[in-house]
């Protein structure tokens, strides 16, 4: 194989790069404005209430954090599992992982009741709280992946490359376990409190992270007018297919387990049958758009050579993933808590026993989209400053 050269991301014209940055910057500025508006007025201006306490910002934040650890997978395959086709993509994989995590954390932070107390979150730890562990896991992720990236880029540090590769891989598994456990450890709500949440979030991260990776990789190579070979893309596509199938399998296992337990029939019929918008999001969003159609696009011989099919499948995986997290986070809260088993609530001033309404507000949406823009800005700036992208990713043998 010919030697791989990496180069900073320069677009055809400076305008092309800076126009992209200006667009991202505008989205970020709007998001910060939305966050300020929500914090200034208080959370009553959002769709969140005392019943649905985590709203759209959490969906975006969890989505990005889960995708971040998954985006690192390509680098892990290159270093931990020794895949030569994946190794040149390792640098970008790490950069994207850092960017996505930063984007998610900004959204999470700006939705806190007291974001000004970040320093308290960083200095007061309750080690029984999975949230506190996550703060450590997230900070550690930045550090480890940052050093990992360095070992890939600096020849002098290259001897630590494999060690760091292993460290980063185990750390990302721990991180997603932590994210899934946020829900897995909640005994109060029937939709959560399941150990399967942790591995399910890991497999979700594989899928969303790779989809993000494919889309941003293709976009960057179009942006920078560089060559991207079909063979490498086909590898990524096939891998995405495996992950999408695995996500469907975990969804099936989760719901089958719940269906077996009579106590959980209420929440299951809510999500699967009569939950209105949540049922639609589950079947149409998560299963059809996020699972079945992408699988068809990936495995049908008709689209074997079609690059648009890879892009479409990845975009659909991301849309379906968003709905999946929405159903978990919001759907799980919308379903009434079983405070009085065996009783029907006739009257309550606090919405006991009723399905809780939640309508996301525009500022929440803008904040969440801003998180994606922050991730993309970091990737664009990082790719411009460091030699992250191979000059050419044409298939081996083509250039010979």
């Amino acid at each position, binding site marked *: 194989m010919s030697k791989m050269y990496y180069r900073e991301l320069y677009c055809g014209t400076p305008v092309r790069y800076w126009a992209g940055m200006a667009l991202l910057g505008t989205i970020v500025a709007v998001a910060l404005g939305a966050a300020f508006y929500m914090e200034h007025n208080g959370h009553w201006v959002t769709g969140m209430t005392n019943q649905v306490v985590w709203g759209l910002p959490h969906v975006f934040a969890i989505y990005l954090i889960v995708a971040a650890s998954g985006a690192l997978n390509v680098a892990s395959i290159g270093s931990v599992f020794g895949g030569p086709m994946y190794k040149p993509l390792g640098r970008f994989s790490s950069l994207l992982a850092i960017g996505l995590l930063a984007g998610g954390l900004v959204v999470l932070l700006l939705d806190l009741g007291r974001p000004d*107390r970040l320093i308290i979150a960083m200095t007061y*730890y309750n080690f029984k709280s999975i*949230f506190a562990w996550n703060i450590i896991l997230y900070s550690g992720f930045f550090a480890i992946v940052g050093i990992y990236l360095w070992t890939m880029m600096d020849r002098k540090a290259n001897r630590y490359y494999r060690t760091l590769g292993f460290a980063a891989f185990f750390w990302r598994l721990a991180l997603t376990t932590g994210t899934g456990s946020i829900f897995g450890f909640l005994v*109060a709500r029937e939709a959560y409190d399941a150990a399967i949440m942790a591995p399910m979030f890991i497999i979700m991260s594989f899928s969303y992270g790779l989809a993000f990776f494919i889309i941003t990789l293709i976009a960057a190579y179009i942006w920078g007018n560089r060559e991207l070979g079909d063979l490498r893309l086909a590898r990524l596509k096939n891998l995405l297919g495996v992950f999408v199938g695995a996500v469907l399998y975990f969804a099936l296992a989760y719901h089958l387990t719940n269906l077996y337990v009579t106590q959980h029939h209420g929440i299951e019929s809510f999500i699967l049958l009569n939950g209105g918008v949540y049922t639609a999001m589950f079947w149409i969003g998560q299963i059809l758009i996020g699972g079945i159609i992408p699988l068809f696009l990936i495995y049908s011989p008709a689209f074997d050579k079609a690059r648009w099919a890879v892009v479409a499948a990845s975009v659909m995986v991301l849309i379906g993933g968003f709905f999946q997290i929405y159903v978990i986070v919001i759907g799980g809260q919308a379903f009434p*808590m079983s405070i009085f088993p065996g009783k029907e609530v006739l009257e309550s001033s606090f919405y006991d026993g009723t399905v809780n309404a939640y309508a996301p507000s525009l500022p929440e949406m803008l904040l969440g989209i801003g998180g994606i823009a922050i991730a993309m800005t970091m990737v664009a700036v990082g790719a411009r400053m460091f030699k992250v992208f191979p000059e050419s990713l044409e298939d081996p043998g083509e250039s010979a």
Partner: protein
Amino acid sequence: MSVKNDQPDMNRRKFVGATVAAAGAVVVAPGVLLHTVAGADPESQGASAKHRWGMLIDANKCAEGCSACVDACNSEHGLTSHGRPETDAQWIRTVKLKDLNTGHINRLVMMCQHCEHPPCVDVCPTGASFKRADGIVLVDRHTCIGCRYCMMACPYKARSFVHEDLKDQSVNAPRGKGCVEGCTMCVHRIDRGETMTACQEACHKDGHGAIVFGDLKDPDSEISQALKSQNSRQIRADLKLNTGVRYSNL
């Protein structure tokens, strides 16, 4: 007389030592004094594990249409409605229940159940949710970051998030926009040595007597006697949280 050798000047060393000691004493002494004075005040004695405060709520006595306890709690703690029931803080609420099998109808009040093993305390990342030695579960408004994980974890929906700016706060319960809060079991009263919570007082005054508050660890207290003589239950007893609030006739 001057000695020409490299022996250190011990006088200077003593002088520096004495100065540092004196300065240290001046700095520390007022703090020690204040601490001693403050410790003498009964309100700052701190909670004692010799008590466990609890409540017994008699679902048969909770009267239809009555909201005396809710109103009393609101005025005691300065909880004002903004006409937005979804986001307004509610520390105590009335709930009317019907048994699905028998059709029997009950009414009761729900609030923080002051669990022995509170899930809100487990999940709180900063330790702002905490349980006092006397069993009262509280939120430290100085370290709450407003993440609402405790609200996700509480099986009783006992907590509220402050969704807006606050005005005219009560001295009894300092609150904070962007923080989570809930029933304090009128901790300000307990720390003053009083024996009735605001809700119990109001319920008693209206002649219902549905709420009994007291020390679960004192075998002679009214609540201990009542719990001993009649059947009571914890809500969501299956979670084994050992709640401080118990219900009879439910």
